[in-house]
């Protein structure tokens, strides 16, 4: 079976949230462009606690390639950069200087390769090419860690806005479930196995 087809079918079939997901898929372009614009505005207007707005834009651009915005919301819409800013001031202060050093090195590569020190100003293809070249570095590992943590943690930490990360994978935050939990146990009950 084709994976992408499976993925889309799975995505549409999420119990209880099928309608909402369908809506997202059907009206995707409009939602994408409006949320991207909103995220851009947030970036301009929000005061970061730790990061300067310039470096925040660059880190956010890296996060946006790790979990891109495509047919579903990505790190940008989830506000991952705000999670990063938050934890750099709380539980991960030790990551700040290595991240700044890693960014400086990445910007130097951007300058020498593409003639622009602004990573965020490059095309997605150029950004991906640069990130592939640093995939094995500790800096990229940290950015990946931060991006994923920000995408899937509780929104109170600053990311996963509107549960963008959880919706992406089909996770619903509920405190009570009852059987059946999935297709196979429903089928098992129906067959009286």
């Amino acid at each position, binding site marked *: *079976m084709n*994976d*992408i087809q*499976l*993925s889309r079918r*799975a*995505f549409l*079939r*999420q*119990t209880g949230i099928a309608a909402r997901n369908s809506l997202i898929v059907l009206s995707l372009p409009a939602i994408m462009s409006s949320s991207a614009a909103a995220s851009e505005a947030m970036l301009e207007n929000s005061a970061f606690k730790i990061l300067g707005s310039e470096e925040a834009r660059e880190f956010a651009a890296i996060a946006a*390639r*790790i*979990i*891109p915005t*495509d047919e*579903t919301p*990505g790190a940008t819409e989830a506000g991952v950069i705000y999670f990063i800013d938050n934890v750099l001031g709380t*539980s991960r202060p030790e990551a700040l200087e290595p991240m700044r050093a890693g960014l400086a090195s990445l910007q130097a590569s951007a300058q020498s390769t593409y003639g622009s020190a602004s990573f965020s100003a490059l095309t997605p293809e150029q950004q*991906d090419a640069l*990130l592939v070249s640093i995939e094995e570095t500790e800096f990229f590992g940290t950015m*990946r*860690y931060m*991006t*994923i*943590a920000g*995408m*899937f*943690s*509780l929104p109170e*930490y600053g990311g996963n806005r509107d549960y963008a*990360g*959880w919706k*992406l*994978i*089909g*996770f619903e*935050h*509920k*405190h*009570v*479930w*009852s*059987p*059946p*939990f*999935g*297709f*196979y*146990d429903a*089928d*098992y009950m129906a067959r009286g*196995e």
Partner: protein
Amino acid sequence: MAQASFPTREEVDFVIVGSGAAGGIMARELSTAGFSVVVLEQGPHLQPGDFRHDEWSYTQNEELVWGSRKGHPQTFRRYEHEKAELVDGAPLGYAHNVGGSSVHFSGNFWRLHPIDFNEASVRGTIAGTNFADWPITYDELEPYYTKVDWEIGVSGLAGPWDPPRSRDYPCPPMPVKSAGVLLERAGKAMGYTPFPAPVAILSKPFNGRPACVHCGFCNGFGCEVAAKSSTAVTMIPQALATGNCELRTGCTVARVNTNENGRASEVVYWEEDGTEQAQKAKAVVLCANGAETPRLLFLSASAQFPDGLANSSGMVGKNLMFNGSSNAAGLFPEEINGHKSIATTRVIHDFYSIDPKHGFYGGGGIDSRSLTRGLPMASAMRGGTFSGLSWGSEFKRGLAQEFTHTASFNGHCTTLPLSTNNVTLDPEVKDKWGRPALRTTFMNHPDDIATMKFFLDISMEMLDAVGAIKKVGSYARDGQTGGVHLLGTCRMGNDPATSVVDRYNRSHDVPNLFMVDGGSMVTSGRGQPTMTIMALAFRAADHIIQAAGRNEI
């Protein structure tokens, strides 16, 4: 009755170090028998309402399981000639709170089988290892397994898959999950005998506690409705209600002092603000787990006990065992939703003892799970299980597909006791109290690794048998680098020359000192040791109470 309060300078009957699976039971049993008991616990006393579905905090910021971030660094090395390196997190993982790891465990409650107790006699010893029989039999422990079932609260289904039991489970099995259905169907297709997983989680209201609500934040988290049968919601409240037990939280034990007669006399500890205290006691029970108990014995070395307290055998800290594991993840066409409900609902034990004709020693079981505990962040951190990608749009699409559609068949198996696998004090790294850090030296015996591979191979065949679209398998082919089942480090035995505690968990060397936790286990069992740790605790408590009554402590 109100919680007791004892002055430190007056001798209490027992000081118990640790309030976890074993400590909670010791506290309840000894206080119920009328003894004065002080329990020292280094973590806080969390209530069900304190627990949150907070993956960032619990899995990444050491909310319950402390490591370097909380001032408790650990070091690790493969072999004794190497220098141990500081490791991020905690290679020896255990929760720091009242109830210990019974608060955040997944509650899988396998009993040992009769063969676990005399396997060295049946199977033969294994050169280069400390593989040995236990000094007790399954029959001697069985009444205490049943006591755990009914005092703690266990759900399951009695049947031919079970070792002999004198009484049924108090609660029926938990509802089967999709991964459990797949394991059951695969197992039956291959001629095995799958059965409902026994778990220390309530399927119906029992002993004043409610049934599980299937929230899914089980393994690694605390239960917010008190349906998980931790000692924090079972034994500890009962101990405190006797009026004979004082629970002191935020208290980190520095050492056990002995008197001129070589008897334990007091336990020195720090309160949270650093104030040093010493509680005098007639007897001391260490229930600090298979890592912290041997560490405390080393820290209690004195002129009288130069190699550490209770260590005339030289076996303290040695024979560290985890349980081996393998993980076979399968992608299925329909929804699994492993993030709902408990960790596992079906098990097979058809390979409890692997046929010796395979040429290695081992055995274990396979259960049904969700990959990465059904946790969103952990699932993404792992990377695309089936895409093999770790970032970008295709990685993202893979995540959306696999989070809800993956089942995992996990092997849980034996590891052998070796002198060279051990817990010692790190010569350089210190914790926040200035105590030498825990240093782990560990490399699996080749038979452990062969056993893990054996269980992976069967699990992969089972995934095929039940129609997985894609599958990925893994096991620690280069050896394990840590564990949460901390076993063997104060082994039980009849011979003081080769064991640390006797058949009733009493130190061979120090007559009023008892070690009751996973360290007592002579062999590793096949997995899920907490049930056995609890049964040993009930048994030890019975004998301590009787011995105290005869004035023999």
